[in-house]
């Protein structure tokens, strides 16, 4: 059984979303996703300043086994990327909720309400 913190929101495509005090959101992939992928060896992050629609491909994570797209959970602009996970992709395997991928400024904070809560995500991730 993978770890699904109750404090986060989730997309069905296996991203977690944390709303920060400054109105930005921090985004990563879930523990379930890292476990399914296995040892991560490569992470490609978006450019800071780039804008994405919800559910568009925004980043790529690759394990030894496979490549997987990461999707923008909500519409918005990328304001920061986590270079540390590019340098050490295995940190996502070690703690998927500490090793965030990027931060976005939401186009509309109300979009967060469309995401799943922990129970909703747990139901689809099994």
């Amino acid at each position, binding site marked *: 059984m993978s770890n699904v913190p109750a404090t986060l929101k989730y997309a069905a495509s296996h991203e977690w979303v944390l709303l920060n005090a400054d109105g930005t959101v921090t985004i990563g992939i879930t523990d379930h996703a890292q*476990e399914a992928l*296995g*040892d991560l*060896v*490569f992470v*490609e992050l978006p450019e800071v300043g780039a804008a994405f629609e919800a559910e568009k491909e925004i980043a*790529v994570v*690759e*394990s*030894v*086994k496979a*490549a997987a797209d990461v999707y923008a959970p909500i519409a918005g602009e990328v304001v920061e990327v986590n270079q540390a996970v590019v340098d050490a992709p295995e940190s996502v*395997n070690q703690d998927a909720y500490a090793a965030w991928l990027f931060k976005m400024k939401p186009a509309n904070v109300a979009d967060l309400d469309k995401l799943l809560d922990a129970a909703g995500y747990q139901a689809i991730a099994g």
Partner: protein
Amino acid sequence: MLKKTVLNNAHRAMNARMVDFGGWDMPVNYGSQIEEHHAVRNNCGMFDVSHMCPVDVVGADCRCFLSRLVANDVAKLTVSGKALYAAMLNDAGGVIDDLIIYFLSETRFRIVVNAGTAEKDLAWMQAKAAEWKLDVSITQRRDGANNLGIIAVQGPNARSKVWEVLPQVKAATEGLKAFFAAEVDQYFIASTGYTGEDGFEIMLPAGEAETLWNQLNAAGVAPCGLGARDTLRLEAGMNLYGQDMDETVSPLDAGLAWTVANKDGRDFVGKAALTANGQQKQFLGLILLDKGVLRGHQTVVTKQGNGEITSGSFSPTLQQSIALARLPLGVAIGDEVEVDIRGKLLKAKVVKPVFARNGKSVI
């Protein structure tokens, strides 16, 4: 309904992550694929390969049958126990399967074929034996009564671990050079493998496989999944059937020319097509110079035209991405080429298709 090997419960007890591998419920890893990979390169690991199919070929015409059946020449098998890697071709020269043939006596050979191709292989062998009116009986040993389990124990410490658990086989297997087999009681122990490391592949009655698996684990042999098996064989430059070659690909275009013995008068299925078509592509290695991961089916752009990656991954030994690729003739080792990864052209270097053996990089 997925098929299960006799070790299925043992994998689950060891918390394996199970996946559907060509219709078989198999362990992909027991935690970390990379750690399992390093265990085999540096110490010792074991794989359940009971999904592969041993086939016993028995009868007066064994050697004649195999001589016509495969592209490598069983005349090379002169010492009892010697093994031969060979491709079984169709009439068009495409690879039906790659397999290992063990010579036990003039009336008894054992072949091990791939899991996903076993049924078609057996049907093909039976049809050829009938067509050629030869005295051979062909019996699969994977399913049903008298079935065998197969455990591959691989790594620099593999032999000593096996002897620790099965001291009775030591005398018969101590002197085994690479690519031989010895039979001791109910055990068939072969110095073959799919990792580029020393080790044994052990066939034994299926009902005894779980006990041996657990004894090896207790002796410190790490259980390893199909994930590590794939990166180990890729680093060792060993072909994977269905990825690096299949029925539409000539062994000459898949880096298997060394297994095709076509220089003498012997005839075999597919020889005429190989002779007519010759080599069309070359099978080489790639090392990615930019950051990213090479994968199967990515396009390789060269000055001589486009090629294709057949197998690619991240190499835990080299700590960079490597691949096997089918490239146009004229591309040379040392050339710099480009690989299309999600629309970006990334730089890669052409190398010999062997990356690591015996614990070390050979690049």
